[in-house]
């Protein structure tokens, strides 16, 4: 099979990183499997139900988005819309600048990664600190998350200790507990000094306007406990009909993501502080972001919009485990990313059109997906689309020379015969570095070029 960019990345990947990603992903898959098996006799029925709930929601997005907007406004939140990533960034900085906010704390959200919010805020002079431990390390390293749920799955404690030392968070110490305590102390001041807290949302209930956020560290709670402004960036597809659906979705999200029945903190936000409930942020802004989602809804791959970002498909994927998240060259890695990233790229689809090919279509991603997304089908549809749009296929060798050879019977005959000399070439000595790892585990069959032709000839004679 042709060499894809993802596979190439996998082969050059540091062994330690590969092992870390592999074992951590495998452990995630194992935990998910155990907890679902322990709690449910028919987990697949539940996944299918969750899939229907989400499919219903996105197929009625026109109704639910409008309803969510009204509910949010009724609760006292300001509702904004952003068509593109740039619009979304600008919406955030406009709100902050209008309020004179200079410092913000951020809770982990994939959509803010997607729109590159931190870069934008930095460029307009606003300090933005990631508060999730993993995301903070990504931020100080100028790195990118390599997993949806475990952003630093590719780093080890020594890498982190070095980064902390560099950032002035104490002398080198690679004990995970010490690292965590230092982050705790550092973040405390950041929370207390921040003018605004920025979060994402896991779900928004159209009926009640409740915004649901799940975390284990408690950082999102802090972002809503100390600052006076709350900005939530929400992809338009996050809307669900009502709170009742959460019974299904929350039960599957925690178990699929980390093998927990529920994540430690499940937070339901229903508007800003009120006179008799003054503790939270005084202002609440919800920015609904499209950024290609309505186009995906129009496409034959709309099922991907059901995704609740649990990361289970990454953990189970043999390609992800070998290649790690960075191989996917985009914010969303793994099987979900192989579908979502090229679609989110919009008119730059071709640049990521190789991602849907980085899969053996083994189907494991579909089997673990809590909302039953038929990822392999979507990958096939995108492969076709890549084909139709003549996206470059990075792994396929140029066919020019072969075409010439194949269209001239005389040349062909000559090549077939003369290639017998291949049998005498010591392949492992060929100066082709990229072939060597492949050849270590394989041998080529003996060259028997031309035999079919002579066999045909003999047959005709008879």
């Amino acid at each position, binding site marked *: 099979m042709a060499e894809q960019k993802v596979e190439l990345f996998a082969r050059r990947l540091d062994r330690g990183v590969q092992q870390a990603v592999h074992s951590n992903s495998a452990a995630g898959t194992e935990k998910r499997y155990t907890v679902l098996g322990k*709690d449910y006799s028919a987990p697949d029925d539940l996944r299918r139900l969750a899939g229907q709930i989400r499919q219903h929601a996105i197929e009625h997005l026109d109704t639910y988005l409008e309803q969510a907007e009204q509910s949010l406004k009724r609760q006292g939140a300001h509702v904004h819309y952003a068509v593109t990533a740039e619009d979304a960034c600008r919406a955030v900085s406009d709100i902050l600048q209008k309020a004179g906010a200079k410092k913000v704390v951020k809770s982990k959200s994939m959509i803010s990664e997607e729109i590159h919010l931190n870069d934008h805020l930095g460029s307009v002079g606003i300090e933005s600190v990631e508060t999730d431990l993993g995301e903070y390390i990504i931020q100080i390293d100028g790195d990118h998350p390599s997993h949806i749920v475990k952003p630093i799955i590719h780093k080890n404690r020594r890498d982190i200790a070095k980064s902390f030392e560099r950032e002035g968070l104490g002398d080198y110490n690679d004990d995970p507990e010490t690292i965590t305590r230092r982050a*705790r102390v550092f973040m405390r001041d950041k929370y207390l000094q921040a003018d605004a807290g920025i979060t994402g949302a896991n779900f928004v209930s159209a009926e009640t306007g409740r915004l649901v956020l799940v975390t284990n560290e408690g950082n999102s709670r802090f972002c809503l406990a100390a600052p006076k402004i709350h900005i939530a960036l929400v992809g338009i597809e996050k809307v669900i009909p009502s709170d009742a659906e959460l019974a299904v979705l929350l039960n599957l999200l925690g178990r699929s993501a980390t093998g927990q029945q529920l994540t430690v903190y*499940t937070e339901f*936000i229903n508007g800003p502080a009120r006179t008799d409930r003054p503790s939270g942020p005084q202002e609440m802004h919800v920015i609904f972001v499209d950024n290609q989602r309505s186009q995906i809804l129009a496409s034959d791959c709309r099922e991907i919009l059901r995704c609740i970002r649990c990361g289970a498909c990454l953990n189970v994927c043999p390609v992800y485990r070998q290649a790690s998240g960075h191989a996917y060259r985009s914010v969303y890695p793994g099987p979900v990313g192989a579908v979502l990233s090229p679609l989110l790229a919009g008119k730059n689809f071709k640049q990521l059109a190789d991602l849907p090919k980085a899969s053996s279509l083994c189907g494991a991603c579909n089997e673990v997906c809590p909302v039953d997304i038929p990822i392999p089908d979507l990958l096939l549809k995108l492969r076709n689309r890549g084909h139709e749009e003549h996206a470059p296929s990075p792994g396929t060798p140029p066919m020019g020379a072969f075409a010439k050879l194949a269209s001239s019977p005389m040349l062909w005959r000559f090549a077939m015969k003369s290639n017998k000399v291949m049998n005498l070439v010591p392949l492992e000595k060929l100066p082709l570095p990229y072939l060597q790892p492949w050849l270590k585990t394989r041998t080529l069959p003996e060259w028997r070029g031309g035999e079919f032709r002579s066999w045909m000839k003999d047959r005709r004679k008879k």
Partner: protein
Amino acid sequence: MSTARDQIFSSVRAALAPLPERTARPVFSKDVAEPHWLATEADSLTLFQKRAEATGTKCFTDMESCAAWLRSQGVRTVYIPAPLTRLAALCSEFCEVTSNYTRARVNEIDAAFTPAAGAIAESGSIILSDESTPDRLAALAPWHHIALVSRAEIHRTIADALAAMPDDPNLIWVTGPSKTADVEGILIQGVHGPGAQACLIV
């Protein structure tokens, strides 16, 4: 010029218009996502205690043992809201007690009691609301947080709790201490929130 809102709504409508039919809203019973072991479990209080302990939340049923635990943890300053005088008396034997939670003392106050709005037996979660816990920081910043859970307010299931959510700007279900496994998948407690989560059932 059309607004961003108009643009988004018109592309969403345009995307959905050609669909020959749309997936109907699935009808499901409220208990559909209940774990199958739930039916055979004992009363909600016992179940809550069992599930809470399993997720790392310590459960106390009397003030004395709760105070003794805080003492053994070396707590120096505890926040106890005004009406809880007996608890305050017990704690004042070994540490400073304050009924005033201020930002200036966020790093000094290392334990806090706050009343919960309820609990969930199925998951062992504590429910906090802005009404029950008027200062969000008090339940989050100290290393030890002890929620006061009333027996009568324990919901049996997650679905029950969802159906009974009060009107409050913020509800939070707390299921164990704050934790992370970001560094090499190793579990560490007390990242930003409490490293020791407890509840006192009253």
